[in-house]
C-alpha cells in the first residue's frame, strides 16, 4: 500500500495552529565547544532537546555527550545502559560533574550521532529534576546505542539554562540542537 503525502505536507508547511509541542530555539553550528540555551521560558511543563552531532575528546565537559543545568557542575547522579554492538553494559555515576546523555561518538565526516533528551517538570521548584536521554550512532568507526540515561539533578530550582558539550572538527557537517517546550 502506498500513501502520498503531498496534500498533508502542504497543509502542515503552511503553519499549524498552536499546539502542545512548541519550538523554543534551535542552534546550528560548526563550532566546537559549549552550546547554550539561556533564559528558557517557564511556561511549559516539560522540555525536549532533539539534535545531531559528534563528540570527541577536548570538549568542555569531557569526551562524551554531556550537559549541565543552570551552570551547575556537581549534582548529577546518572544511570545508563549502553549497547556497543557486542555487549550491553550498565553503570552509575554518583554526583558527577555533568549529565551524560550519550557516549563518546566521534563519528566520521558526515556520519553524526543523534539524541533526544527529555527534562521533566522543569519549572517545579518542589522536585529534583529528572532527565532521560536516548542517543545513538552507527558510524563507520563508532557504534553505540544509549538508552534511558536518567539523572537526578539534586536541586529544586527551576531550569532556566542548559549547556551542551559539542565537538566538531571543521570538516564535519553542522551540529544541531533544538529545544522544545511541551505544555501540560
Amino acid at each position, binding site marked *: *500500500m*502506498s*500513501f*502520498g*503525502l*503531498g496534500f*498533508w*505536507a*502542504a497543509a*502542515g*508547511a503552511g*503553519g*499549524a*495552529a*498552536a*499546539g*502542545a*509541542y*512548541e*519550538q*523554543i*530555539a*534551535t542552534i546550528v553550528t560548526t563550532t566546537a565547544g559549549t552550546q547554550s540555551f539561556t533564559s528558557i*521560558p517557564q511556561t511549559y511543563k516539560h522540555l525536549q532537546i*532533539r*539534535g*545531531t552531532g559528534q563528540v570527541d575528546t577536548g570538549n568542555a565537559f569531557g569526551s562524551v555527550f554531556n550537559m549541565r543545568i543552570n551552570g551547575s557542575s556537581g549534582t548529577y547522579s546518572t544511570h545508563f*545502559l*549502553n*549497547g*556497543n*554492538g*557486542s*555487549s*550491553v553494559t550498565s553503570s552509575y555515576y554518583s554526583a558527577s560533574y555533568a549529565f551524560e546523555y550519550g557516549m563518546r561518538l566521534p563519528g566520521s565526516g*558526515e*556520519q*553524526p*550521532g*543523534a539524541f*533526544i533528551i527529555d527534562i521533566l517538570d522543569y519549572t517545579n521548584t518542589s522536585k529534583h529534576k529528572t532527565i532521560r536521554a*536516548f*542517543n*545513538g*550512532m*552507527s*558510524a563507520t568507526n563508532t*557504534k*553505540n*546505542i544509549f*538508552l534511558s540515561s536518567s539523572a537526578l539533578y539534586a536541586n529544586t530550582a527551576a531550569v532556566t539554562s542548559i549547556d551542551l558539550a559539542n565537538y566538531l572538527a571543521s570538516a564535519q*557537517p*553542522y551540529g*544541531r540542537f*533544538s529545544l*522544545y517546550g511541551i505544555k501540560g
Partner: protein
Amino acid sequence: MPAGVSAYTALANVTLGSSASTVTFSSISSGYRDLVFVLQLGTSPGGQDVNLRINGDTGSNYNGVTAEVYASNVSSSVYSNGTALRLQRQAYTGTGLTTSVLINFLDYSVTDKHKTVLNRFDNTTEPTFNQPGTNMTASRWANTAAVTSVQFFGGNFIAGSTFALYGVSA
C-alpha cells in the same frame, strides 16, 4: 521558526483495512527537521525481520547497532552494509496488534550528512524462541539525500495495523 508556534504536525495516519506486505509513505515534504513514525502493528508469519527502506534505495547502504532483551537475556549486535534499515530482527507478534514502534529520523531533510534513525521496538507477546521483547536501535542510511519516501516491509502487516507520521519543525 518563532517560539510559541506548534512544532509537531500530524502528516498522515493510516489504518490497514486488510493485510499488506508493504506500507509506503511517499512525497514526504522537506518542510520539517525531523520525522517521527508511531506504529502499532502485528506481523504474520512471526519471526520475520521488520525493515524499512528510504527513497526506494535497495543498495547496501544501511548500518545499525542494536541492544535488545528477551526474557532474562540482553545482547547487542550490529548489521553492516544491509539492503534495508532493520527495525527489529525476527519480530514475533502473535495474532494481535501487540507491537509498538517509535521511529525518529533526525535531520531527515538536510543534505550535508547521512541520516541517523533512532528507534524503539517493543513487543508484548510472550516469545516462544529468542525473539526480543524490546530493543533499541541506532541506524544510519549512508546517503546525504533528503528523505522523501519510506517503505515498511517484513512479512505481512495484519489488518488493523496503524502507521502514523509526524513532522517536527526546527
